[in-house]
């Protein structure tokens, strides 16, 4: 809860709380997400604007085996309660599956150790077309020097393949001191090899688009909800997964 108050004072308008599920342990059940209203009786207002802060829930699945992906296809009610679903693939095959067929919003890129596989262009391009975003974490880079090297090398190799598109930078902060403001995170993006415009987008517009992608996934198949601004409608059309029919306006 402390972390959230610091987030808001620093200037973030939407925060997603993450649950991590690791499939190596047996009998992992998807638990219901903690509702944000339990944490805050009344949500404070964003600095600078007069809107309230949104708190979303997010699920991260660490997959090291193709059979773990079956969980995503099951109609478990609890999965639907999460706003954003992310997957953390451990092998190249799983990375390919995650980019092409799995119904997720984010693909996490490992920053704490040397990647066991190299990125290839076809699955990355397919993920970009489907509207899936790649996620990089920055908190390990702040904590430890060797992790910093892995973070930067993995991030730069990702940039070389995807040319800086569809990147989201997020923190895995466990304590309020590990958080950094949005301007600083965009500057970190410069270190990762992004250009300045891309780095700012990685903190703002890409995150927003990933959120919208999650919402289209949550709503029933084939429905595109109308948004008033025409710019957002374009984002919606790219965010609807390819296997579902998109109803165009």
């Amino acid at each position, binding site marked *: 809860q402390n972390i959230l108050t*610091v987030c808001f*004072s*620093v*200037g973030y308008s939407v925060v997603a709380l993450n649950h991590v599920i690791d499939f190596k342990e047996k009998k992992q059940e998807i638990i219901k997400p903690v509702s944000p209203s339990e944490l805050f009786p009344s949500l404070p207002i964003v*600095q*600078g604007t007069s809107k309230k802060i949104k708190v979303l829930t997010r699920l991260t699945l660490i997959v090291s085996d193709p059979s773990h992906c079956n969980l995503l296809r099951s109609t478990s009610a609890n999965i639907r309660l999460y706003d954003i679903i992310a997957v953390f693939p451990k092998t190249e095959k799983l990375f390919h599956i995650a980019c092409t067929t799995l119904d997720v919003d984010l693909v996490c890129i490992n920053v704490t150790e040397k990647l066991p596989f190299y990125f290839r262009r076809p699955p990355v391009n397919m993920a970009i077309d489907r509207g899936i975003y790649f996620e990089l974490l*920055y908190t390990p*880079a*702040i904590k430890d*020097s060797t992790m*910093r090297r892995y973070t930067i090398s993995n991030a730069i190799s990702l940039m070389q393949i995807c040319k800086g598109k569809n990147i989201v930078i997020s923190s895995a902060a466990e304590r*309020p*001191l590990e*958080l*950094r*403001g949005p*301007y*600083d*995170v965009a*500057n*970190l993006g*410069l*270190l990762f090899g992004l250009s300045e415009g891309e780095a700012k987008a990685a903190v703002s517009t890409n995150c927003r688009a990933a959120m919208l992608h999650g919402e289209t996934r949550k709503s029933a198949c084939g429905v595109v909800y109308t948004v008033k601004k025409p710019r957002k409608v374009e984002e919606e059309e790219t965010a609807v997964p390819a296997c579902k029919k998109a109803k165009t306006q």
Partner: protein
Amino acid sequence: MVRFKNRDDDCEVISEDPRCRQCIEDRALGLAIRDAITRVHGDYGLACCSISFTVKYLNAYTGTVLLRCRKDSYRLLCSALPFVRSLESRAQRYPCFLNTLHVGGTIRTCQKFLIQYNTTQLLRLLQNCTNEEERQCIQKSLLSCSLTEEPSPSGDEEEDD
């Protein structure tokens, strides 16, 4: 016209420990930042950034800091700022982090931004105010904020906590 172009960086020091703010010194902060630059960019980065690196303004009550560096090396500085983890002063280490607020070309623009920022902070404090006296104090200082001809920005700060 040949002129040395500088970049001024507006940061705020945030930490959990309430005593940290009073103990911020410009030298300690400068050392912490140089240390972070060395860790991230190495000797080259430190050499580049310290050509004209100074801490221009420090406000211990609000925790705002104004840094100045050369325009060519301000990217190195900005990308190393997130890696500042703690401040050391008087043999005590305080964990904290810096939050960049604004980057400008001259001190005047940074001052203007600081005044706006301070007024918004005061407004926020006003909302959380419980005491009538404090409320009046804050309102008075809000009305008296303005850019004077002196180099230091004006505007009182009232701390509720």
